[in-house]
């Protein structure tokens, strides 16, 4: 049979979210031949993210904050309990010389537009030498005798096979790549927050990320009000379905119509509807297999207290890209045994802290008494975002 020429890469990355695009960019910068594929036609759409990310997270990855993707600058947090009492952590007040809007001062973080942010990250990967294919879906992979693997793709309806030394699964929440290798990736119902959010007009915000705790508003999770630029806001929440019979949509309606914010929300007009699942889970215990590693949401690299996954996806991508470039340059065989090194590295830099956060979270929700549980969550959230939190950098 005539076999057409099969393209060969050092690494093939499935999924161009923050995790995949960063892995690809770093690996390409370090001289690897990289293919990055995504099944979407427009990255980041439909949006499944609120877009809050710290300035530190971007700086760490050499990402210059740009108007291209930033909706609004953020200066701190307001954490509310169920009744509406709050702990305000405004860095403009805590460190006025460093944080603020004036000359020489900076924001604490940003709310980004994931469509533009993901496109930007992909463009940076491409400029670093990555080959990028959109409208290209990963279908499966097959380790080969020679130590490489075949990756099966479908691009604009055409089936294509490429060869690669390592396949990186960065395919997000609904990840299939891990399953291809038989890894147990599904998340427990009790550890996946079911989320819904509205982008709204006519709700004022003040440069702070507002987080509302309390079983009444969001059992197992929390509700949020984020500034979204252009005078818009984002109202959303996530619930754990094993803790309630109602869905996220029902809770969001309750929160808007019945909470202590009901006056503030009374004229709100919905401009966009978004949602998704946020793993409040531990990272996967096994994030590697023969010729394969997982990164980002696909490996459940999400902060189990805040549900934030952009920073951890970016950091995970940096760790994966750096690891793979020295790994492949040393001519190591990408067997599962050898690729365990990636996970070890990840645990050391990031993962062990995430496990600790997971234990803290588990402790809170193990408390049977709901009032106590609410109090614990409120206190944990308040101290998590305080300037002296030990977790500030994840």
């Amino acid at each position, binding site marked *: 049979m005539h076999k057409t020429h099969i393209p060969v890469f050092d690494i093939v990355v499935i999924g161009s979210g923050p995790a995949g695009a960063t892995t690809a960019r770093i690996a390409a910068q370090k001289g690897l031949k990289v293919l990055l594929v995504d099944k979407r036609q427009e990255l980041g759409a439909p949006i499944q993210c609120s877009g809050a990310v710290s300035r530190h997270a971007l700086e760490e990855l050499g990402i210059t904050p740009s108007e291209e993707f930033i909706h609004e600058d953020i200066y701190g947090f307001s954490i509310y309990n169920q009744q509406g009492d709050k702990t305000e952590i405004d860095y403009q007040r805590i460190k006025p010389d460093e944080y603020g809007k004036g000359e020489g001062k900076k924001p604490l973080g940003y709310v980004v537009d994931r469509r533009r942010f993901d496109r930007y990250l992909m463009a940076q990967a491409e400029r670093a030498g990555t080959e990028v294919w959109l409208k290209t879906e990963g279908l499966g992979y097959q380790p080969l005798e020679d130590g490489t693997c075949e990756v099966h793709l479908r691009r604009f309806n055409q089936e294509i096979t490429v060869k690669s030394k390592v396949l990186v699964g960065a395919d997000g*929440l*609904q990840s299939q790549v891990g399953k291809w290798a038989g890894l147990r990736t599904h998340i427990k*119902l009790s550890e996946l927050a079911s989320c819904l959010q509205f982008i709204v007009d006519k709700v004022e915000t003040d440069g702070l990320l507002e987080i509302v705790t309390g079983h009444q508003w969001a059992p197992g999770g929390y509700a949020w009000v984020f500034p979204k630029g252009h005078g818009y806001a984002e109202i959303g929440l996530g619930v754990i379905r094993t803790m309630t019979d109602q869905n996220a949509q029902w809770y969001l309606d309750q929160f808007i119509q019945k909470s202590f914010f009901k006056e503030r929300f009374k004229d709100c007009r919905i401009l966009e509807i978004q949602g998704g699942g946020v*793993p409040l889970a531990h990272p996967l215990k096994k994030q590697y297999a023969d010729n394969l590693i997982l990164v980002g949401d696909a490996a459940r690299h999400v902060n189990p207290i805040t549900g934030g996954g952009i920073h951890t996806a970016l950091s995970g991508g940096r760790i994966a890209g750096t690891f793979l470039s020295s790994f492949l340059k040393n001519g190591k065989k990408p067997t599962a045994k050898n690729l365990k090194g990636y996970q070890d590295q990840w645990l050391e830099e990031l993962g062990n802290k995430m496990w600790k956060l997971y234990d803290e979270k588990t402790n809170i929700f193990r408390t049977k008494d709901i009032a106590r549980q609410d109090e614990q969550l409120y206190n944990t959230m308040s101290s998590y975002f305080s300037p002296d939190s030990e977790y500030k950098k994840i």
Partner: protein
Amino acid sequence: MQKREPVIFQIGWNACINCGACVAVCPQGAGFISAFDTIAVNRPCDIACMMCEDICPVTTISHQHLSELNGKKEVIEWLQAQHTK
């Protein structure tokens, strides 16, 4: 454990936000998905744990037991044929 009866899912596409949460909780092996980031709708599920229905933020997944489709064997065959296309 008592074996559950296989089900076929229907998704109300009008409410679905294509978020993939149903896929993320699903213990099925690789490929039990639709082109719209939801669990598969063209094959019966024999695990029938219903976690996909629970996680859905807009409760837009419903199911029928395979037995309810009895006599409609050709429907299932047709669905499956769609999958292999």
